[in-house]
């Protein structure tokens, strides 16, 4: 048996410089990035509740994909969505160990034309983030994927679930979410 036959190896096309002088990514990767970046940011945002941090997560996710996968792979969108949820959950679980002072400093830097609305949104985001951080990871990922705007089919692809099972799993995830909201952060 020729073990090397398991893999076909071909280098991607050579990167070309873009208008800003930075090294451009291969064209196929750029297409993938443009198609999926907003959704990856939204998945991450649904977990971390902060756009700048969600964009940081999205950058990490795309770099990880770039390093290890071909943009032509048919699973690319599903991989990116799942990785966004996973990486964002890692971020908030790690962040939950940060001190209250750091949290206050982070939110204190924000400015808004509607400070009351922004404060309510921050509070809502904080509650969602804290609840997702305490939940079973699979259920938290499922809610993040669905409530970032992905369809049932996209959620199914990202989680490796049959589409007709997504509804049932989402209901269970909602139960777990509500239970954690009721318990609150102090148990």
């Amino acid at each position, binding site marked *: 048996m020729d073990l090397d036959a*398991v893999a076909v190896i071909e280098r991607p096309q050579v990167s070309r410089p873009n208008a800003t002088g930075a090294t451009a990514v291969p064209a196929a990767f750029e297409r993938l990035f443009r198609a999926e970046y907003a959704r990856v940011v939204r998945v991450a945002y649904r977990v971390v509740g902060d756009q700048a941090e969600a964009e940081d997560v999205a950058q990490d996710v795309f770099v990880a994909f770039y*390093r290890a996968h071909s943009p032509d792979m048919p699973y690319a969108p599903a991989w990116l969505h799942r990785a966004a949820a996973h990486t964002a959950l890692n971020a908030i679980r790690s962040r939950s160990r940060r001190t209250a002072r750091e949290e206050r400093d982070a939110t204190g830097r924000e400015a808004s034309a509607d400070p009351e609305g922004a404060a309510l949104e921050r509070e809502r985001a904080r509650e969602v983030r804290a609840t997702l951080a305490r939940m079973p990871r699979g259920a938290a990922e499922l809610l993040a994927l669905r409530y970032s705007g992905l369809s049932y089919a996209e959620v199914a692809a990202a989680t490796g679930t049959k589409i007709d099972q997504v509804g049932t799993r989402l209901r269970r995830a909602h139960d777990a979410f509500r239970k954690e909201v009721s318990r609150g952060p102090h148990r």
Partner: protein
Amino acid sequence: MDHIDSNEKLLAMPPLAVDADTGLERLASTIQHTGVRPAARAIPGFLFARQAKWLAAAAAVAIVATTLTMTGVADSILQIFEVKQVAAVTITPTDIKTLGQLSQFGKLTWPSQTEPHQVASLAAAVSETGLPPISVRVPASITAPATYGAMARTQATFVFDASLAQASAAAIGRTAPPMPAKLDGSTLVFSGGPAIVISYGGESSPSGALYVGVAKAPTVSSDGATVAELQSYLLSQPSVSPALAAQIRAIGDPASTLPVPIPVGQAQAKNVSVHGTTGLFVGDSTGLGSGVIWVQNGLVYVVGGTLTESEVLAVANSLK
């Protein structure tokens, strides 16, 4: 439900303006300044092949993967591995490429007749292999007639070769970690089979396909490679991802557990109960194909095909 409504209020996404141009510029800058290189366009055939090809290739990779879990110390050829159970190991396409390039560490020799060949009947397969006859209850959706295959016991020999490892690494501009002197020239002997495979339909069969296989549990022998040498050398290769290495190290009983590679994003695996023992269910992401593998009484059983989870488990549990 009320709690779903209240959850939805909490979870609703606020408007979000996302600038892909800025994101792309930032990514390009990161790539430029950190020297991150794109993945080689590795397109492992089995990710796209269906049913039999996938199962066969996965099994081949699984056998190769066992070299990562070798254990035992021996002064002469000594059996150090026998499959008694299976465990899922999630692998990425990069990992697959790594496993596929195991030959860069040495020379693998397989005898010419390692493929199953068709025989006229189950009785002929049983007679040729010495394995017990098997039968299953075939789902009504599978209408193709059965064909039978048999494979004799076979051995593959892998000899580590430090000079080959260095040359392979140099060819791709990398420097190979030094191969321990004791490992250089040491031999692993993989033994597999005999096996019987019953096939109903095939890859392009409009009525679906079902494959049922039984084989004597594979073994691996070593003429001296130790767990420390094999694991520290193979798992420390820069091309072996830390995640894969961690999974391999986490296998509780590496001397008897066959790691079954599960391509991330393409398939899922979970433990299931089959014939009173624990088996591994593997389903592809489309739900169009699935299989179950388990080990019982020194034999490895595989049932797979264009079946749902409940169907494939029903077939597996009907096996006699």
